[in-house]
C-alpha cells in the first residue's frame, strides 16, 4: 500500500501543491487528474522519490521512501515500473536492449533467460515482432508500448503511467488503455495513472484523485466522481462534448 501524507512541494516561490494526502490500496488503479501544470507528474515523482518534498511523507508498505538512504531507496525503486510521458527509451540501443536493460543490471539471469523474459514482456504489449527495431523506427504508440514492456520486465509491484495516452490517436489510446487494464489484472499490479484524458480515466481507473488550486481538491471512486457535485471537478470532467454526453447519459 502507498500512503501519501501531508505532502507539500514548491519550486522556489512557486507553490505546486500543499498538504496532499491519500492512500493507494494494493491492486487498485488510481487516476491522478487535473489541469496541465497542476503538478500531477511532480506528484508521482515524489512517490518513487525522484523529487524530494518540502514536507510530508510517502510510505511504501509502511516505510517512508524519503527517509531511506540512497541504496535502500534504489532497491525500493525496483518495485516500481514507470512509463514516462515521452517513453524515455534509450535511443542508443534497440527495442530488445531497452527492455533487457534493467535485467542485465539487476538480475543474474543467463542470456537465454533474459531473452525469454524480454520476449514475454514484449508479448504483453503485442510487440514481439518489433524486438530488433531501432527506437528511431518506432511510432509514438509503439514507443509507449516498449516503455511499458521495459517498465514491467522486472515484475514490479507498482506501475506509474505519466500521460500514457497523450499525443496518440484515439485508436492507439484505446489500445494503451486496454493494456493498462490487462497488465493490472494479469500481473496483479497497483497502477497510478497521471492523465487529463477523461476517457482513459473512465476506462481504467478504480479511484480518482483531483488536483486543483494547489491542493488535492477531490478524492474518491469513479462511481462517486460521476455523482459528485464538486464544481471544479464537474467543470474539469465535463470540459468536452463527449464527457458532457457521458454525464447526461449517466444521470
Amino acid at each position, binding site marked *: 500500500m502507498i500512503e501519501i501524507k501531508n505532502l507539500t512541494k514548491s519550486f522556489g516561490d512557486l507553490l505546486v501543491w500543499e498538504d496532499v494526502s491519500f492512500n493507494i490500496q494494493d491492486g487498485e488503479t488510481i487516476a491522478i487528474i487535473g489541469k496541465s501544470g497542476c503538478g500531477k507528474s511532480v506528484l508521482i*515523482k515524489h512517490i*518513487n522519490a*525522484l523529487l524530494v518534498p518540502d514536507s510530508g511523507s510517502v510510505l511504501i508498505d509502511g516505510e517512508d521512501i524519503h527517509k531511506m538512504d*540512497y541504496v535502500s531507496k*534504489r*532497491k525500493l*525503486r*525496483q518495485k*516500481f515500473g*514507470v512509463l*514516462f*510521458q*515521452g517513453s*524515455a*527509451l*534509450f*535511443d542508443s540501443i534497440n527495442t530488445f536492449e531497452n527492455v533487457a*536493460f*534493467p535485467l542485465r*543490471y*539487476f538480475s543474474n539471469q543467463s542470456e537465454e533467460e533474459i531473452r525469454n523474459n524480454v520476449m514475454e514482456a514484449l508479448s504483453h504489449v503485442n510487440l514481439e515482432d518489433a524486438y530488433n527495431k531501432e527506437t528511431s523506427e518506432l511510432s509514438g504508440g509503439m514507443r509507449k508500448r516498449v516503455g511499458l514492456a521495459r517498465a514491467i520486465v*522486472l515484475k514490479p509491484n507498482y506501475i506509474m503511467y505519466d500521460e500514457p495516452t497523450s499525443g496518440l490517436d484515439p485508436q492507439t489510446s484505446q489500445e494503451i488503455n486496454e493494456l493498462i487494464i490487462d497488465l493490472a489484472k494479469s500481473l496483479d499490479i497497483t497502477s497510478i495513472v497521471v492523465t487529463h484524458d477523461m476517457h482513459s480515466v473512465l476506462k481504467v481507473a478504480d479511484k480518482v484523485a483531483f488536483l486543483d488550486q494547489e491542493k488535492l481538491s477531490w478524492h474518491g471512486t469513479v462511481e462517486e466522481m460521476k455523482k459528485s457535485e464538486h464544481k471544479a471537478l464537474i467543470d474539469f470532467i465535463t470540459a468536452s462534448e463527449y464527457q458532457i454526453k457521458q454525464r447526461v447519459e449517466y444521470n
Partner: protein
Amino acid sequence: MKALRELGNYSTLLYQALRSSTEFKTYRKSFFHEMVKIGYDSVPIIMLTGFFTGSVMTIQSAYQLESAFIPLSTIGAIVSESILIELAAVISSLVLAGKVGARIATELGTMRVSEQIDALESMGFNSVSFLVVPRVLAGIMMFPVLYIVACVFGIGGGLLAGLFTGTVPAADFLLGARMYFQPWTVIFGFVKMFVFGFIITSISSYKGYYATGGAEGVGKSTTNATVISCMVVLLADFLLASLLL
C-alpha cells in the same frame, strides 16, 4: 550568488561521482565505450592540430630568428620545447573542450530533458555512477594518451615544415630538440593533460546532467560547458605553471 550555487552543485556532483566510483560493475561497459569515444575517436583531430601547430611554429620561428648569429638548431629547440611544455597540452585541450566536452554535455542534456536520466533512476540505477563516472575516468585516462599523439605530430610537423620550406634542415632541428630536452617538461605535460581531462569531462558532465528546458536548454548547457571548460583550462594552465615550474 548564482556562481556560488553552481560551484556547490558541481562539488556535490563530484562528491557523488567519487562515492559511486566503487560501483565498477555499473559503469564498466560504458567506461570502455567512453575510452574509445574520447581517445580513439579524437586521434585524427589531435593529429591535425598537433601537425599544423608544429609546422606554423617552425615557419614563424624561422622568420623571426633570421640571423647569422642564431644557429638553426635553436628553432628545433624552441618548437619542440614549446610543444612539449605548453602547446600540445593547451591547444589539444581547447580543441577537445569543443569536441569531447560538447558531446558529453549534449548527450547528458538530451538524456535529462527526455527523462532518460529519470528513467535510469526510477529503475534503481545510480545515474551518476552510470553516466558521469565513466566519462570523467575515461577523460582522465585518455587525455594524457592524446598528449603523446599531439607531441609526436607537433614535433613531426615542425620537422617536416622546416625540411620542405628549406628553412631548417632536419639534422639541425633534431639537434636543437635533443640539446634542450628536459624529461620534466614531458611529465609536466602529462600532469596538465590529466588535470585538463578532469576539468573538461567533469564540467561538461555537470552542465549536461543538470540541463533544463528542452532543446534550447541543451544548446545553452552545451555552449556553457565548452566556454567554461576553456576558461577553466586556461586558468588551471596558469596555476599549474606557477606551482610546478
